[in-house]
């Protein structure tokens, strides 16, 4: 009997939790809304967020020019000093890539001083691959770069429309790139060497309201590869085949999120950076 019950529950989760036709009611928690993040009285103006695979949140504080983490136990640690950032990403070794003042910096784990690795590359979004390579979105050049901490860099895509946010699928087969005009999330096949191919307008988000500039400034994925795209309408959630599941309202209407990331003990807390303030919301599904 227990086995049958377990099987049925598992079947239900497999067919509902990770199937594609997921309504918002299976993503959001009833009566759970956005909340202003409580950050242990950290005084800050935040300019970038990201998270690591352990569920730690990384924040760039432009007021104190530092980057700090909040681990899943809510312990705050300053990890890089003397730096503000437009974009952050953490690699599998715990090192931090930092886009700041048109340069890319890297701080290895435990090293509070970041070193410049690339000169003159203005990135607004960075994401990392397990093999150590990174993608950087450079909307002013309408390009996506592939780079490494050795400083090697290569333009791997040039678009008609710039991209402003990036996310890599959990199996690292697909790069998702949010457009500056808010009309598309492009997908690319990630080749073994990190190069990109098979570009298409895979996801078509809901259009912004008349008179509001569209953009997809932030993007992240959950464990089922659902895409959470920060847009002017709110956080639009798409299933892995690019179909809209629903829209989470803006954390601080009418302002919208510039960056989003999953973090927390079970990685079910969605963090959203709105202006320079941080908001959180619990979600039913965790990030990987």
């Amino acid at each position, binding site marked *: *009997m227990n086995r049958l019950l377990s099987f049925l*529950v598992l079947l239900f989760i497999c067919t509902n939790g990770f199937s594609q*036709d997921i309504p918002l009611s299976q993503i959001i928690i009833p009566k759970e809304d956005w909340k202003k993040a409580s950050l242990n009285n950290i005084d800050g103006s935040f300019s970038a967020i990201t998270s690591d695979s352990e569920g730690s949140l990384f924040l760039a504080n432009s007021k104190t020019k530092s980057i700090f983490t909040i681990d899943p136990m809510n312990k705050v640690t300053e990890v890089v000093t003397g730096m503000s950032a437009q974009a952050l990403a953490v690699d599998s070794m715990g090192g931090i890539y930092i886009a700041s003042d048109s340069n890319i910096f890297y701080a290895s784990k435990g090293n509070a001083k970041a070193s410049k690795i690339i000169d003159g590359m203005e990135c607004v979004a960075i994401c990392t691959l397990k093999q150590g390579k990174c993608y950087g979105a450079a909307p002013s050049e309408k390009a996506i770069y592939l780079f490494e901490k050795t400083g090697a860099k290569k333009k791997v895509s040039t678009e008609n429309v710039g991209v402003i946010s990036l996310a890599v699928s959990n199996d690292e*087969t697909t790069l998702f790139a949010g457009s500056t005009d808010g009309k598309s999330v492009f997908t690319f*096949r990630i080749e073994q060497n990190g190069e990109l191919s*098979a570009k298409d307008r895979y996801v078509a988000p809901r259009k912004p309201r008349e008179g509001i500039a569209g953009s997809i400034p932030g993007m992240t994925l959950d464990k089922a590869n659902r895409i959470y795209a920060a847009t002017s309408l709110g956080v639009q959630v798409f299933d892995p085949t690019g179909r809209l599941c629903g829209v989470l309202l803006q954390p601080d209407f009418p302002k919208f999120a510039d960056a989003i990331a999953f973090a927390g003990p079970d990685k079910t807390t969605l963090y959203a950076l709105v202006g320079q303030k941080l908001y959180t919301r619990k979600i039913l599904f965790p990030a990987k």
Partner: protein
Amino acid sequence: MKQFVTIACFLAFFYNFLIAADDYVLGIDSQPNPNIPKGKLEKSEWKSNIFPGTTRDMAIYVPAQYDGKTPAAIMIFQDGSSYANEKGQFRVPVVFDNLIHKKEMPVTIGVFLNPGTIPASNPKEKGRSNRSFEYDTPSDQYATFLEKEILPEIEKKYNVRKDPAGRAICGISSGGICAFTAAWERPDLFGKVLSHVGSFTNIRGGDVYPGLIRKTEKKPIRVFLQDGSNDLDNLHGHWPLANRSMAAALKFAKYDFVYVEGDGGHNGKHGGVILPESLRWLWRE
């Protein structure tokens, strides 16, 4: 308590299967007849440029009556392998053999296309399905794929009709709206549409069609729609209502159309059973 939860889980999971009667039985025209000529099915793979990086399985049915002298009609099936399966719900090659032999439909080349997949560069990982993007998007991209890649390939090998009345397109679920979209966008290419449990819902904005049909000058398309009263009702929409709304719009705009609604769910049982009748209606003079 555990027993109750178990039964509740069971009922929740099998709800759709339990509420629909769905007791359709395939007729004689869906059964193989050893006494009539049998067409051939050739399988291949197609790599697309219109959908960059995708590969897909493709099969071409050539009826025994095809002589290469008289241009054959052509019918393109989305999710092709399920339509081409001779033991499946539709059994198109069997139905084609029977109806062509009885001269109840023209000599027709069947093209069975599966949706594209973008293979992962790492062979240990799964490829990414391009199905929803290709089928659910109300744009001309899929019709362009057929026009620029598939039709020329068929025309290279076979003598087929090039008039839209000689070309039909068919699909199930998202493949159903895909078939309609292809003809809607390119009535110069396709004049006949057969949709089974078509997803005329808001998966990617396809719920706009009833409104578009009502306010657009009638296009030269013949449409057969099938759905079931126990079809899906989910975040994307309500399938029976969406199909009824399509039928009402086609009626309003005076299209040559038929809408048949059974009591089934989101599957091809009813559509498969009425396939011979659907094809007779679609291909009538």
